């Protein structure tokens, strides 16, 4: 069997000097189950994420991968098991939920920028109202991160005036303005044209290079190969296989993973 060719669509060298997985536990999920009505979406999920890890979660649609990361900041409620994020357990206690949410950044497939606010206001809203940071300071932070995602010149435009790729980069900057310790990506490039996928992946790679703990639901296998330290394959609401990327792509163990990879890598 030949090794599959997985290309990263971004033409750049990746600086791995700061990508270090530590022993500190960032997210601990034990025996987590979730149902939609009577439909069992997540079945006995166990998973530990250490600080500095870059995890890519993949799987066919309906496999529960989005639901899993949405449970981590309680956009979805789990019905059984335990999720501990940064030492805070997610229960129905609103205080804990708000605490976790302000520590965990999330990037959505459809960006979900606030269309009635300018780019800058999108980025400063949560720091001002949740973190109680003075407006000027919040604006400085926002400009810093907008420069990092390479669109400081768009700061005073509205989301509707930007391209999809630009909007997604703003969404990443908006999350970063809260100085999160963990970033969740829910199919960040699935709604984008190929050219725009590049710019978003580029931003995500820079983030990984700085040592951010990242959980990405994505079909960008090139990104997984180049950046992730672990790839998780999910099917029917359970984790079927996980491995470091090289082994995962070159030597998948389960039949289900092999089938999925052969479809997505197309050979």
């Amino acid at each position, binding site marked *: 069997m030949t090794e599959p060719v997985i290309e990263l669509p971004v033409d750049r060298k990746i600086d791995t000097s700061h990508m270090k997985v530590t022993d500190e536990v960032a997210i601990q999920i034990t025996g987590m189950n979730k149902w939609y009505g009577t439909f069992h979406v997540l079945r006995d999920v166990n998973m530990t994420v250490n600080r500095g890890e870059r995890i890519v979660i993949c799987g066919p649609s309906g496999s529960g991968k989005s639901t899993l990361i949405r449970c981590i*900041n309680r*956009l979805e409620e789990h019905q059984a098991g335990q999720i501990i994020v940064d030492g805070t357990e997610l229960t129905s206690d*609103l205080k804990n939920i*708000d*605490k976790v*949410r*302000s520590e*965990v*950044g*999330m990037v*959505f497939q*459809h960006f*979900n*920028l*606030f*269309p*009635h606010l300018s780019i800058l206001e999108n980025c400063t*809203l*949560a720091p001002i*109202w*949740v973190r109680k940071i003075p407006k000027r300071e919040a604006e400085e932070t926002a400009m810093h991160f907008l420069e990092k995602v390479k669109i400081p010149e768009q700061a005073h435009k*509205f989301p*509707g*005036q930007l391209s999809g790729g630009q909007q997604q980069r703003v969404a990443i900057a*908006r*999350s970063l303005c*809260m100085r999160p310790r963990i970033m969740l990506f829910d199919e960040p490039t699935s709604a984008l044209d190929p050219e725009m996928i590049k710019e978003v992946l580029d931003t995500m790679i820079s983030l990984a290079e700085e040592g951010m703990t990242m959980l990405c639901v994505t079909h960008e296998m090139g990104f997984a190969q180049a950046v992730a330290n672990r790839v998780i394959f999910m099917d029917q609401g359970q984790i079927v296989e996980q491995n470091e990327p090289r082994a995962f792509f070159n030597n998948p163990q389960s039949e289900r993973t092999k089938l999925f990879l052969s479809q997505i890598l197309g050979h």
Partner: protein
Amino acid sequence: MSDTHAQTVSYVRQTMLAPQEPPRNQTGAVKWVHENLFSGWLNTGLTVISLLVIFWLLSGISPWLLNSVWRAGSLSECRAILDGTSGACFAVIVDRWHQLLFGFYPPELYWRPVLALVLLFVALAPVLFTAIPRKMLAFSALYPFIGYHLIWGGSIWFPITVLLGFGVGAVAYLLVKKINNLAAIFAAILAPVLWWLFVAGPLESSLHSIMPLGLDFVRSDRIGGFLISMIVGVSAISLSLPLGILLALGRQSDMVFIKTVCVVFIEFIRGVPLITLLLFASLLLNFFLPPGTSFDLILRVIIMLTFFASAYMAEVIRGGLAALPKGQYEAADALGLDYWKAQRLIIMPQALKISIPGIVNTFIGMFKDTTLLVFIAILEPLALANAIRADTNWNGIYWELFIFIGALFFIFCFGMSRYSMYLERKLKTDHR
């Protein structure tokens, strides 16, 4: 410059074309007239017919309007001056405009409602236009008390002690907040109510006996005309929007009790004709109140109209809420905003923007519904028109009075409609 041919598949463009001016007849007035008035046989026909209809209407009405009589003491005098020709008798407006505007308000005190109206616009300005300095909002908040005092008069200590009640509420909130948030909300409601019930009255009379300041008191039954339409309309409009927002949020709430209360309220109010609510306010409400309490008919009517409008408002805003994508709620949640902050900063600005046409529609409808007050013996403009006709001098006059009243309402309703269009344009940031 050869373009692609079927024979030669390979093609490379050598020069890029510069943009050119559009053809002459595709721009300016010629294009507009061609596109909008005479774009085809059907449209040309419709244009001609419309012009004929407009001409016919104007030629029918304008002689009557142009030939109007402005100075006469009675309808028969008008008819004598017109001498059989067709013409309007606007002399009735010249004779009775003050009644149509102010009802039986004492004429020497007309400056008070006029000043209240001028100050109303001053108070509205910062609410309506963001370019006005935000500090002016403090005056807007005080305006209800100033307006009340100008129109009704009486001791100045009455509005002041009522206003102090809100201060008491704020202090109670801040004091109890250190202990418990929920208790603080109860304290903020309970403290002012206790203040108004037990402290405000004695305090007012003692302050008044020490320093009797104030304006001449005007009884509610003397207030009438367009003044009462404005009082009731403006109060009910400004109260129904916040109440409508709360009802809409309550209806969407996960808390069963709150949701049920809101749904029952909205469905009950929407299911009952306004006129029955007004009759209830004027006749029956006193039976349900503890004996000895009686509060002003105008206040009761304002409450009923507010309830009525807020039920409709709630449904209009619910429509706006439903139009928001779920992602907006999720993004607000994911950033750690709590429920009220998310509502205030993310959800409501967008939902209200979507609902502007519906909200203003409700406002305009309710403002015009104030004419229904004629049925509960409040002297609003239509009631006064009837009263004026009952005078032997003006017996038999219809059109002129109704045209005047209609024009008054039109000015305000058209103003609201234009403002809502301005607001929609200003808030258009989605660039679709």
